[in-house]
């Protein structure tokens, strides 16, 4: 299976561990992710609110580059976008361009100025979708070397991968991550805030609102007995993990909840090394998983 890979800016910076663990896990299951050459920032939500046509065109450049690198025999090419914001922007671009001929024409004019075309033959996918629906839970389960028995995991989907476009899971009660957690031998925590927004960039722009949103999520996961939270969005991971000291300071809480990427959890179960999974980049490293303690091999040293 071949997939083209759109990392987006976060996976080269604050979400570096997401890229490291994602590539390691996909390699471990024999799936090749080929990075799109010379991709540009998707523009996130900010650019869309400044100039929609420009934003769509720059996002479409990435899809055009993906299509350009595919051979005719490959037909529809899957572009894997791990960042929730990138995934949403690229998916929105794919859909809007397909549905609005006037936009399609303007995007074609912009890209045509540099000899690029975007035909719409690429398909935007989230790695969670690929893991569950292409690779499959059975194959992932077979690759598990250290069952994560006894570990209680709160899956946090965030708001962007299932809304507004619920392409591979329910918009309000997604379960794909929970099913994956189960396949690894861990226990998914049932909680109602799995798709509640973390506030995105509010932690930087209006911290009093952003911190409060993250505090609600972290405390609810803790109250439900979660040993850790897992996520597939670099901004959610950043907010939930990196602001815990600030939340503790402002609200006199006592939070110390590990928030890791789903791919780091899968990698632990696969027996991959800490460095391969970027675990040394976490501010709050997860405790040794119970199965590893019993088996004597540390999943996280």
């Amino acid at each position, binding site marked *: 299976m071949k997939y083209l890979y759109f990392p987006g800016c976060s996976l080269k910076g604050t979400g570096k561990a997401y890229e490291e663990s994602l590539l390691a896990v996909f390699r471990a299951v024999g799936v090749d992710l080929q990075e799109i050459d010379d991709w540009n920032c998707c523009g996130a939500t900010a650019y869309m609110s400044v100039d929609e046509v420009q934003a769509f*065109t720059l996002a479409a450049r990435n899809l055009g580059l993906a299509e350009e690198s595919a051979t005719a025999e490959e037909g529809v090419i899957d572009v894997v976008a791990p960042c929730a914001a990138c995934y949403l922007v690229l998916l929105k671009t794919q859909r809007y361009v397909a549905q609005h001929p006037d936009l399609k024409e303007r995007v074609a004019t912009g890209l045509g100025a540099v000899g690029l075309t975007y035909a719409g033959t690429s398909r935007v996918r989230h790695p969670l979708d690929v893991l569950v629906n292409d690779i499959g839970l059975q194959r992932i389960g077979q690759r598990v070397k250290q069952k994560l028995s006894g570990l209680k995991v709160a899956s946090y989907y965030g708001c962007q991968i299932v809304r507004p476009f619920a392409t591979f899971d329910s918009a309000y009660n997604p379960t794909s991550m929970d099913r994956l957690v189960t396949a690894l031998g861990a226990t998914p925590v049932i909680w109602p805030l799995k798709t509640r927004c973390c506030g995105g960039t509010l932690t930087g722009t209006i911290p009093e609102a952003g911190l409060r949103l993250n505090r609600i999520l972290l405390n609810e996961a803790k109250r439900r007995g979660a040993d850790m939270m897992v996520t597939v969005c670099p901004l959610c991971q950043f907010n939930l993990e990196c602001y815990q000291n600030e939340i503790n300071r402002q609200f006199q809480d006592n939070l110390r909840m590990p928030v890791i990427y789903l791919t780091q959890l899968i990698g632990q179960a696969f027996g991959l090394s800490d460095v391969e999974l970027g675990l040394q980049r976490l501010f709050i490293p997860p405790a040794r998983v119970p199965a590893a303690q019993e088996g004597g091999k540390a999943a996280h040293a």
Partner: protein
Amino acid sequence: MTGLGFNLMRTGRMSLRPETIRRRAELRKILDTLAAEEKQEVTP
């Protein structure tokens, strides 16, 4: 928040060297083309 920045750098999650794309001129050309087209549309 200084602590946050320090911790990001310590864990290799923030670099002082920004990522950049090779064909920046290509982006400029795309944006200029779109802007020129828009200008044409609004000019009576």
